[in-house]
């Protein structure tokens, strides 16, 4: 996590510097994007995305971004990041991909890959997953080479109380073992056979031929290539060869619980065209999930936090609403209803500090103020309380806080389960916020670009101020 954040800081700082001179320019152009794309290229290479895949990606982004309105997004830097992210997701596959099963059971699934990538562990995990999803899997290890490889799967199966065909001492050939396993599956009514194979190099012709023979014999519906998330540039070579020689049907990305950025996923996906299906998130059998392209894309780019915030901002803040708010502010019509709506938006946005962190420094605000806003914490419980108080008011009261006298305050306190003092405090803070926001919008309204940016974000400064509320 800390690494991730560090990366994010670096990249977003760099991008911000890059785009400093871009303010006021209306569109993204090849020239003004060049430096940003260079930084993104480095970030992707550092994430182990293959050199050529990076090149293609940058081209695609360039094409897509060219001519886009700079103001259409939060900031030009974020806009480019967003486009890159969309391209990443597009490459990774737009949705989680499901397993296919044979029309005639038993379905055969082969698990293949390089040495130590996590095949045996993933076989056990997948068996567990299947058995939890209305299937009756049978495990079999055909790794007759690595010391104690068959024992390893047997131990895992026992731990999980899942059936395994362990074979006899005489069965030392992969094909024999798998055939016996199939016989057993049919006899005992198991509907999926999971074949854990030995690790091998893609350039080991003899061992690759062995897999081809297994495939030929068992016609598996899935051949899952298990890849280590820490893999570097070589991922394209191994994946390409496995795919060429076997026709893999899907990918399991393991060791995603580490801090590798997992760029290999992108390389493998683009070289084979096959979908990522699962990710491994630990050594324990339950550390296994369906693959979600967006999550992995975020991680490769190393800007997950920024991206999710961009999304949240886009989802939660309706531009028109924000503009209306701005108008109201200027006209001094900012009512308690508006106040409550804003609070609800903060709640959707999460910690205000995060949001401020992604904003370029606004010239209208001093550095000290930016810092204060960044550090502001919005207490969820307090927010709920304030919303509850406002909800207990009548529409008239919300439109005009001046009419809220002593007896109304008592009623509101009772209705919201708070004290009169809480209500008093809220009203005090509301009037203060109102004053401050008005002052703010005054300084900003004349600044064109920034004013627009601010309206897009929906009065962040006032939200920041709310963080200092003490009830």
């Amino acid at each position, binding site marked *: 996590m800390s690494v991730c954040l560090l990366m994010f800081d670096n990249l977003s700082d760099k991008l911000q510097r890059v785009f400093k001179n871009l303010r006021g320019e209306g569109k993204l152009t090849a020239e003004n994007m060049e430096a940003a794309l260079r930084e993104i290229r480095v970030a992707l290479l550092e994430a182990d995305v293959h050199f050529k895949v990076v090149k293609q990606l940058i081209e695609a982004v360039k094409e897509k971004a060219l001519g886009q309105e700079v103001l259409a997004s939060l900031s030009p830097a974020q806009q480019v990041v967003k486009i890159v992210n969309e391209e990443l997701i597009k490459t990774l596959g737009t949705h989680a991909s499901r397993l296919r099963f044979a029309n005639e059971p038993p379905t055969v699934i082969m698990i293949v890959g390089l040495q130590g990538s996590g095949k045996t562990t993933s076989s056990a995990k997948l068996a567990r997953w299947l058995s939890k999803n209305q299937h009756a899997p049978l495990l079999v290890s055909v790794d007759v*080479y690595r010391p*104690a490889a068959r024992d*390893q799967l047997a131990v895992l199966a026992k731990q999980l109380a899942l059936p395994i065909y362990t074979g006899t001492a005489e069965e030392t050939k992969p094909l024999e073992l798998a055939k016996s396993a199939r016989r057993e599956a049919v006899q005992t009514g198991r509907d999926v056979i999971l074949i854990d194979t030995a690790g091998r*190099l893609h350039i080991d012709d003899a061992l690759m031929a062995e897999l081809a023979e297994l495939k030929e014999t068992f016609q598996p519906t899935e051949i899952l290539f298990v890849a280590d998330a820490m893999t570097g540039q070589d991922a394209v070579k191994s994946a390409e060869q496995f795919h060429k020689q076997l026709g893999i049907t899907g990918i399991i990305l393991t060791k995603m619980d580490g801090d590798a950025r997992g760029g290999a996923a992108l390389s493998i996906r683009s070289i084979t065209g096959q979908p990522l299906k699962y990710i491994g998130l630990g050594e324990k059998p339950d550390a296994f999930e369906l693959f979600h392209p967006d999550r992995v894309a975020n991680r490769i780019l190393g800007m997950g936090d920024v991206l999710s915030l961009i999304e949240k901002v886009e989802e939660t803040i309706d531009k028109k609403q924000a503009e209306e708010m701005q108008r109201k502010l200027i006209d001094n019509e900012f009512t308690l209803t508006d106040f409550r709506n804003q609070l609800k938006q903060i709640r959707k946005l999460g910690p205000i500090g995060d949001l401020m962190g992604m904003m370029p420094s606004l010239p209208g605000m001093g550095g000290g103020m930016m810092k204060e806003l960044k550090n502001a914490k919005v207490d969820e419980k307090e927010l709920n309380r304030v919303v509850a108080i406002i909800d207990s008011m009548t529409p008239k009261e919300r439109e005009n806080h001046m009419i809220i006298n002593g007896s109304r305050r008592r009623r509101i306190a009772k209705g919201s389960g708070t004290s009169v003092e809480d209500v008093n405090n809220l009203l005090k803070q509301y009037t203060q916020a109102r004053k401050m926001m008005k002052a703010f919008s005054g300084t900003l309204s004349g600044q064109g670009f920034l004013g627009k940016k601010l309206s897009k974000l929906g009065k962040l400064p006032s939200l920041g101020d709310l963080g200092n509320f003490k009830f």
Partner: protein
Amino acid sequence: MLSSLFGSGDGGGNLLERLKSGIEKTRAGLVSKIEDVVHGKKEIDADLLEELEYTLITADIGVRTATEILETIRQRVDRHLVSDASEIRGLIRQHLLEVLSASERPMVRVDAPPLVIMMVGVNGAGKTTTTGKLARRLQDEGKSVLMAAADTFRAAAIEQLQVWADRAETDIIKQTQGSDPSAVIFDAMQAGRARKSDFVIIDTAGRLQNKEHLMAELEKMRRTAARVIPDAPHEVFLVLDATTGQNGLEQARKFTESGGVTGIVLTKLDGTAKGGVAIAIARELNLPIRYIGVGEKVTDLLPFNAETYIASLFD
């Protein structure tokens, strides 16, 4: 096929030859590509530099190190110190050699045996296999070796090491799965001292470097070893899979921090991966590469030597 994987191998032969054939695939990639670049073109231009960048980056050397190398070349070109593309090969070679030689140093020696070596690294890197191969190598040199099965976590890890102990013809100290790895180490240290073994090699469980509790466990294991034999473990090898990308750097940093890494074993160089991140690691953390793994047979471990390594890449 069984014998092709686990046959005893001859183990002899000229070292350079073995090294060369072991990393032939590596050679085919990195060197021949640089050669292509070098032979195909006369003038050093942007295209050539980009192709070199491609070669270096796809070897997992990393953007920073690759950029540094290319920058050196660019400067020399600018100062008219290099004009002929064929000189580039020499330059890159020299640069890599400097980086690797800078971190070279002799193995630790101890006054009183045993010398304790601990294998650490992420999951599946090749620790257990390297323990077996190294034990065999040392036995072949006439040394006595004791193995410690301190991976008490992974399924059948102890059984796996037991097979390697049989192959290497060494004794092994082990307990059952789920027992405390430090307890195994404690036993092994005492046994190693009592039996006057020359070496004790500790196989540890794979762990990802961002798992704090597992890294803390590693620290505890080291402390336990030192309680019985002061300064043990004397050498801590980070076992690094050659297919690893830039995460290798983070592995090296964190394992050095908690595990006190003193050297690197670069495994799976018999594949097509170049293991270039080891060069970045050597450069950043000043860690020597001790051995390379070039297969799954007991004899497939070779001592690393920067000079020989680079020579076998370039000559």
